[in-house]
């Protein structure tokens, strides 16, 4: 197999001669802007806020299904998830276990009824529903406050994720590098200029089309992004199976061969090392990040050891203590992986160095001598936890995490308020079920194949998606396809960011300004304010992301599970339980927020970090948050007076006899 220089940081620039990444980004931005312009042009007359933030409840099957699917599938689906599959193997099939029923749970559980309640009250936002359903301005404001709190942090983290992704994609592209050099000269060394450039490019594009086009633009760009995602996966799957099958003995299937290779794999070791030139004079090129070094075995006949120089960040602390000439390294421990690397690298693997000093650390779970099968069974290898990657308690937690907490996301709830009728809902649930089946399990297969085809990416597994895209397309002589494939993660993060942006600005314009400060505001004023707030919120998030908080993925997990802990129980009670009242549902919301937060605060004392939460009986904080929220809501409701009769009539009785509507 002849392979591109995939371990070089500028590999994307070289793929296909021209840069598919840059081409994709520009083509993509152009398409997104065109859709935003069309959306703005087609915006109907009538209530501006309802149209701008909710599309006038007019979404049909494809628009509703794909905007729902694309918003739920955040950037993590195409960066964090492939990275985890690559790092831990087949166990990720169980990690996403509850995706088997994700669409029916997240859309069918509350969709129909939430849409009906929102129509009866004329609600445009989730806080609107809560405020009207309980006739409580205070409860509505609490809901807005929590949404703005969680989503602002999340938005900053997503901006960072999008920018980092773009930086990876554009790294090494000529025009981009020139821009980085120019920026570096202009701003000095306070911020990484490459990151800043990507942040501005990504951020301004999203803010512009979201502000201009509103909900319709977000929905239609979501549709496009959703299509790109599924096409990306559907192209990658056969390519991955084809390439992995090339090495299979006759009569053995591609995937069977890949799994049998994974049976023999053992986790790599990481550490620091000193190499010094030892070969003949002449080739003295220094060892850069990504270099592979073969060191002959010490005994006669012993197999050569194989090291890769990995980014310093991976072992920064240990390197700082030692200084030059120590470098961070990863050692491949499986014979099969070593052969694959040698085959991939060919002459690029260096053998003109001598290993002078070495300190390595194995995985906390899965690295025992001679142990096999760790990548094909549970709980999966883990560098840091001696219980493995996915012990039973976390299997159960993740079953809650995806399907149940997915139902409690306000960004999804808004979409459930936007479909036009129940026929659309029914067809969309099935569409999303098929859509997710075509994406998530195939992703597990593709990146298990990546483990076999591209060993040694463990320290940079966040880059496995673009790396695999280039690898696959180059090997079948279609480098131009890489651009389309790497657009998929980009699409995923964009479609999440735009909907969050709109959620926050709708909270400020509709829930705070119109409903509390100036109920008589004119359409024109509301229109200007909507544009202004969307622009301001986006601008603020962009500024926040210039120096973003460190724990990117942790913030996304914290805010996602926190929102579910706050919103699921109150909304379920509000739409399904006539006896529910404002006291009970507020208690549920606050109970979920506080108990979930306290697990994270507990992490500071128990584990030394807010983002390593305390796990009660080893369960994730989302379980504690949801249980407390449902329990508090139920108990407080029963101990407080029933709701006013006319409210129950308005939301639970047939409309013709209701008195309030």
């Amino acid at each position, binding site marked *: 197999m002849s392979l591109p220089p995939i371990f070089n940081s500028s590999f994307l620039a070289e793929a296909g001669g021209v840069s598919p990444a840059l081409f994709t980004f520009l083509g993509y931005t152009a398409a997104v802007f065109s859709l935003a312009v069309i959306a703005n042009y087609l915006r109907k007359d009538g209530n501006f806020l309802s149209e701008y933030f909710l599309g006038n409840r007019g979404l049909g099957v494809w628009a509703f299904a794909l905007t729902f699917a694309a918003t739920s599938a955040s950037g993590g689906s195409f960066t964090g998830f492939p990275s985890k599959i690559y790092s831990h193997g087949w166990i990720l099939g169980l990690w996403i276990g509850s995706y088997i029923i994700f669409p029916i749970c997240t859309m069918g559980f509350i969709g129909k009824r939430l849409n009906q309640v929102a129509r009866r009250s004329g609600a445009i936002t989730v806080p609107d529903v809560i405020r009207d359903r309980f006739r409580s301005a205070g409860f509505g404001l609490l809901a807005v406050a929590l949404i703005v709190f969680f989503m602002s942090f999340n938005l900053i983290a997503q901006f960072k994720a999008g920018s980092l992704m773009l930086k990876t994609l554009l790294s090494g592209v000529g025009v981009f590098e020139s821009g980085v050099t120019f920026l570096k000269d202009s701003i000095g060394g306070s911020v990484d200029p490459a990151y800043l450039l990507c942040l501005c490019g990504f951020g301004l594009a999203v803010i512009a089309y979201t502000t201009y086009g509103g909900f319709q633009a977000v929905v239609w760009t979501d549709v496009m992004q959703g299509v790109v995602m599924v096409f990306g996966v559907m192209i990658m799957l056969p390519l991955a199976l084809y390439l992995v099958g090339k090495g299979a003995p006759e009569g053995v299937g591609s995937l069977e061969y890949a799994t049998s290779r994974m049976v023999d794999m053992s986790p790599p070791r990481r550490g620091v090392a000193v190499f010094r030139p030892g070969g003949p004079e002449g080739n003295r090129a220094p060892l850069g990040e990504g270099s592979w070094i073969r060191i002959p075995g010490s005994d006669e006949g012993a197999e050569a050891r194989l090291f890769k120089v990995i980014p310093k960040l991976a072992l920064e602390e240990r390197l700082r203590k030692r200084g030059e000439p120590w470098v961070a390294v990863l050692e491949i421990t499986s014979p099969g992986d070593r052969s694959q690397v040698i085959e991939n690298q060919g002459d690029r693997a260096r053998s003109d160095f001598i290993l002078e000093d070495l300190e390595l650390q194995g995985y906390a779970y899965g690295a025992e001598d001679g142990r096999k099968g760790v990548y094909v069974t549970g709980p999966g290898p883990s560098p840091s936890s001696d219980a493995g990657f996915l012990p039973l308690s976390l299997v159960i937690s993740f079953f809650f995490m995806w399907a149940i907490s997915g139902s409690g996301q306000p960004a999804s709830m808004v979409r459930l308020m936007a479909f036009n009728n129940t026929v659309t809902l029914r067809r969309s649930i099935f569409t999303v079920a098929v859509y997710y089946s075509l994406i998530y399990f195939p992703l597990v297969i593709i990146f298990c194949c990546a483990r076999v085809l591209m060993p040694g990416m463990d320290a940079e597994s966040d880059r496995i998606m673009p790396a695999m895209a280039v690898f696959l397309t180059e090997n079948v002589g279609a480098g131009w396809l890489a651009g389309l494939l790497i657009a998929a993660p980009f699409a995923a993060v964009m479609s999440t960011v735009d909907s969050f942006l709109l959620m926050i600005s709708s909270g400020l314009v509709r829930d705070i300004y119109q409903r509390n400060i100036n109920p008589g505001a004119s359409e024109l004023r509301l229109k200007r304010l909507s544009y202004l707030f969307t622009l301001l919120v986006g601008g603020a998030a962009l500024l926040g992301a210039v120096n973003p908080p460190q724990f990117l993925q942790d913030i996304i997990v914290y805010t996602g599970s926190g929102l579910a802990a706050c919103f699921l129980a109150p909304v379920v009670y509000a739409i399904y*339980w006539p006896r529910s009242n404002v006291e009970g549902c507020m208690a549920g919301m606050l109970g979920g927020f506080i108990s979930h937060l306290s697990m994270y605060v507990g992490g500071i004392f128990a584990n030394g970090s807010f983002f390593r939460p305390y796990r009660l009986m080893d369960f994730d904080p989302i379980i504690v948050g949801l249980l407390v929220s449902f329990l508090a809501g139920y108990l407080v409701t029963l101990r407080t007076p029933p709701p006013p009769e006319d409210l129950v009539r308005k939301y639970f009785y047939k409309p013709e006899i209701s008195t309030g509507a």
Partner: protein
Amino acid sequence: MNAPDNNQEPANAPWDPVFLESRREALIILLLWVAALLWAVPYCYLNGFPETFVAEEFSTVWGIPSWLFWGIAVPWLLADVFTLWFCFFYMKDGDLGEEAPVESQEGA
């Protein structure tokens, strides 16, 4: 299904049919989630988490580890079939109502 448990209303209260149907559907979905949990988690845990890995005992179906195939891939397919049935043969259509005018909102 009987009328919802609301101790302030008479048992024969004229509940909205969409409310009753969607509550019944939500209950079925909740049961589906429980069924998926009871299938996937114990099956995968009992068959896919060996204390000691024995290569000869490890098997695959179409290249997928058999514990994952029977524990996740098959129920995934069945869940899609169930979703098909649920969406096209069980779930009821109903009139969700017209948009309430903004003026009717309390506190607006």
